[in-house]
């Protein structure tokens, strides 16, 4: 509620932001993008940075581009920007659909794509979808630029592959092809609205059977994770009425109870159940969507 004092610096370019992070490397620094995770964290006393580097005004990081193969989101693109861009639902319906169910209108007006991923809240919505979509996270730091596959980006609760003076600059998401179906389904916590469980799916079919499947969940584990056993159950399988249910049953295969998050709203035991239910819904919805246009 009443944060400690901190210094505030507004960066005018990515290069300057990185320089500032280097300069204050000894202090406890935080990047400020949409502020919708950082500020609550500071106000509740969970973070107490000495320096805050504001990147929200950097034009070079804002906006998205829908290319023929991939859609690229600048790190400071807000959720609202995403939803207000023509063509996102055609290109990456799963991402658009995810952004649509983040928080409320105020949150969507302020929160950013890069901030969401960098913060890596286990109950955030965006991580699962970038993992399932096999997106690439573009990173820039003192040593230059590098690209990390989304599935390697998230390491643990609030922990990513980002180095101390590195920034996410962009997220590249492969577009959904005609032979693919993609979706994100989520069970919102009735209090916070975050995902108690959220499952993203991208499936490719040849009409009769599944050629490729990528499933990922957030809300369930300490970081967004692929559901490999369920993916295995799908790949090569013939599309039948009960395929989704059968494959979803594998969502918790090999998962130990301690790996599933446990809190006052959902025990780990029930989380496993929700994970299966929502995996089934995601698979079914993705299957139903192959070759079908999705709109807002």
């Amino acid at each position, binding site marked *: 509620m*009443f944060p400690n004092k901190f210094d505030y610096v507004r960066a005018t370019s990515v290069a300057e932001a990185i320089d500032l992070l280097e300069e204050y490397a000894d202090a406890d620094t935080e990047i400020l993008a949409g502020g919708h995770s950082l500020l609550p964290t500071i106000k*509740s006393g969970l973070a107490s940075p000495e320096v805050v580097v504001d990147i929200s005004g950097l034009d070079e990081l804002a906006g998205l581009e829908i290319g023929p193969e991939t859609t690229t989101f600048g790190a400071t693109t807000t959720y609202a920007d995403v939803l207000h861009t023509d063509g996102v639902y055609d290109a990456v319906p799963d991402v658009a659909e995810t952004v649509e169910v983040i928080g409320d209108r105020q949150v969507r007006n302020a929160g950013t794509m890069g901030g969401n991923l960098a913060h890596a809240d286990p109950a955030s919505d965006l991580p699962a979808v970038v993992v399932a979509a096999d997106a690439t996270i573009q990173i820039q730091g003192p040593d230059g630029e590098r690209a990390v596959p989304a599935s390697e980006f998230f390491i643990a609760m609030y922990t990513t592959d980002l180095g101390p003076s590195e920034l996410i600059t962009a997220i590249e998401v492969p577009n959904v092809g005609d032979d693919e179906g993609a979706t994100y389904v989520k*069970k919102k916590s009735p*209090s916070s609205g975050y995902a108690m469980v959220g499952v993203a799916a991208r499936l490719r079919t040849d009409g009769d059977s599944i050629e490729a499947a990528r499933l990922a969940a957030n809300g369930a584990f300490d970081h967004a994770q692929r559901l490999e056993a369920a993916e295995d159950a799908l790949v090569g399988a013939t599309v039948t009425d009960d395929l989704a249910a059968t494959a979803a049953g594998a969502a918790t295969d090999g998962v130990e109870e301690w790996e599933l998050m446990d809190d*006052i709203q*959902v025990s780990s035991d*029930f989380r496993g*159940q929700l994970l299966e239910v929502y995996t089934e819904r995601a698979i079914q919805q993705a299957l139903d969507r192959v070759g079908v246009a999705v709109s807002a």
Partner: protein
Amino acid sequence: MSIETIESDEVERGKAVGSSMQRREDRPLITGEGQFTDDLKYPREVQLVILRSRFGHATITDIDTSEAEAMDGVLAVYTEEDILASGLDNTIPGDGGQDHTAPVDRHLLASQKVRYQGDPIAAVVAKDRYTGHDAVDAIDVSYERLDMVTDIQDALQKDAPVIHEEAPDNVAFEWSSGNADETLASFDDAEEVVEVDLSINKVVAVPMEPRAAVAQYRPAAEELIVDLGCQSVLGVQDHLSGVLGVPEQRITVRAPEVGGGFGVKAQPYTGHILAAWCAMQLERPVKWQATRSEAFVSTNHSRRHDLTARAAIEDGRIVGLHVDSTADVGGYLTSGGAGVPSGAFGTRLLGQYDIPNAFVEVTGVFTNTTTLSAYRGAGRPEAAYVIERLANACARELGEDPLEFRRRNFIEPDQFPYETPFGSGYDSGDYEKTLDKALEYVDYEAFRERQAEAREEGRYLGIGFSNYIEICGGGAGGLQGGQLRIHPSGKVVARSSLVENGQGHATGFSQIVADELGVDIDDVDIVAGDSDRVPEGGGTGGSKAITMGGNALKEGAKKLRERARAIAAHELEAATEDIVFDDGEFHVAGAPSRSMTIEDVASVAYSGNLPEDIRGLEETTFFSPEGSTAPFGTHVVIVEIDPESGELEIDRYVAIDDVGTQINPKLIEGQIVGGVVQSIGQAIYEDAIYDDNGNLLSGTLQDYAVPRAKHVPEIEWDSTVTPSPNNPLGAKGVGEAGTIATMPAIVNATIDALEPLGVDHIDMPLTQERIWRTVQEAQEE
């Protein structure tokens, strides 16, 4: 039925009562002009921040305030010692020390021991809140932690930690009511005994505006002025005077806009009393504004009971009701802490049923948790929950339809006034009527068919009924002042002690007064929420604004009208008996042209030329009703449940309420809808959860699920009208009705839905996980 509102200038003279006039309270709120306590800023104002216990149960061995005191911008740091040194005894009023309650005091600031997380320990006054919070963090409290107990069952165990030495068994009170012997005997002879064990969840009241106060002291005049969001300016005046020793007449208490009261802004708390005390110490305006997190641990919680309810049945009728309950009072007995879970709960347990023998016993138990007291409905939602769950269980046991069982057991219209074995009276009622009306909205037969078809497809629909009563609106012996003044201009000002908390009092009061005086509604202003400007009377709570405040103003206005008639007679040179009043005009019977409007009368009323006994148009009336009122109704809920995910969807919510004569149907609908939403919260989402260390885990809005708009279905509202014989308006209370009705309807619907899966019981809240688990367990059996 959807109710359209009309603008106040569309209201015809004399026809205001019964019209759905727009709320006059809304414009300042919507335009941002409304001032809440924290919006008030006084010169030289400083900020009070309270240090509260981190632990649920601990002895305080030392409080080192030196670092905090040395901080720039800190004016003072206070502990119990300072309070005692000022001559106060450091206690605040509560329910302890009565005949049936433990002799346990509440403290302004903790005295050597803390008994719940949030128990106030020390106070910092600083130039701003940032400094205040930093200083609070700098106070070094040495705690010696004690074993603690946060659940009522554990607290009653033999070896449980003792929370108060004065109550070694942790029993805060023991209370019973009803005809015990006859009731217990009725069980011996009964054909059938049906029993339910219910655990009622603890909820946190979350008014939009957390508690706040700003106090000023004028030493020369020895006057204290306190602005705060509260429910009763005169009540606060009372307890400030009692605790601080300042004479009542020198204390002004004002309520600016109040961001929700719901019962939890009715009691004395450390926050506002300490703000006043600090203002007296420092001779500067002192403001305290609780943060949301502070409100979660320090504003009263409510409703936690564990109980067994039994019905003795003969010929399909309940002939005996026995309820044995254990209720949580939290770490201390706050005001209402004993009253709410005993009388306010226990004497309402009959619901709509004609039950000749009834007996209720409640044991209040201390736990290391925040204090519990009144929250919208105050005991009655719990009571309605018990009897309506039991009614369904009885029907199930007898293998009959829940409505058939209810109809057979209803108190019949000709049994009113009805006296219960608890000694409480119901004024009037017609319970079949609201049920029949509800069934006009919900086609019961068709639903049962749809339910059966859905079950074939593996879908689970359920219907639940709640046939509730409440007892509210003041009672015999209660007193409420209403003050009226018609200015020489003909404009009317009416004054009442009932503080507006969002209900729309001013709208309703103005409708009543305008009709009685035959003036335009916009010519009636209402003044409330200022102890200096209102007559004696009660505070807002117990659904009595219209039944008490409205009737006081009605009676006062009637007297003024008679005075105006006498003045008109004097002016028109006719006998008072010959003056007729209609359409807002006085005229001489048989000579309509010789007339005066009430405005004309007002313009001559303040004249020394009038005889002394008819001078002036001012009136203070003290109203006392014949008795309380018993609004009632039928709420019907249809739910669909997915047993795989535990998801519960409310398909339909139909509420039919009878609150007697209606002053403003739109306001009534609003009160019902708000109440229903609050209980949807308790039924499905809300739960105050403590860990074993006494930490309130659900202590933020991130974790504690107050229902949002998206969680609430459309609420279809309609009504019947059975006037109360106990007051001139014929009105009954409405503020709490929705809250009282809702919970059992939702839970009964849920059990109905899950019945084919073997479920016959579930406790609240109906979270996804609980529903899923309940189904799992039923399937295993």
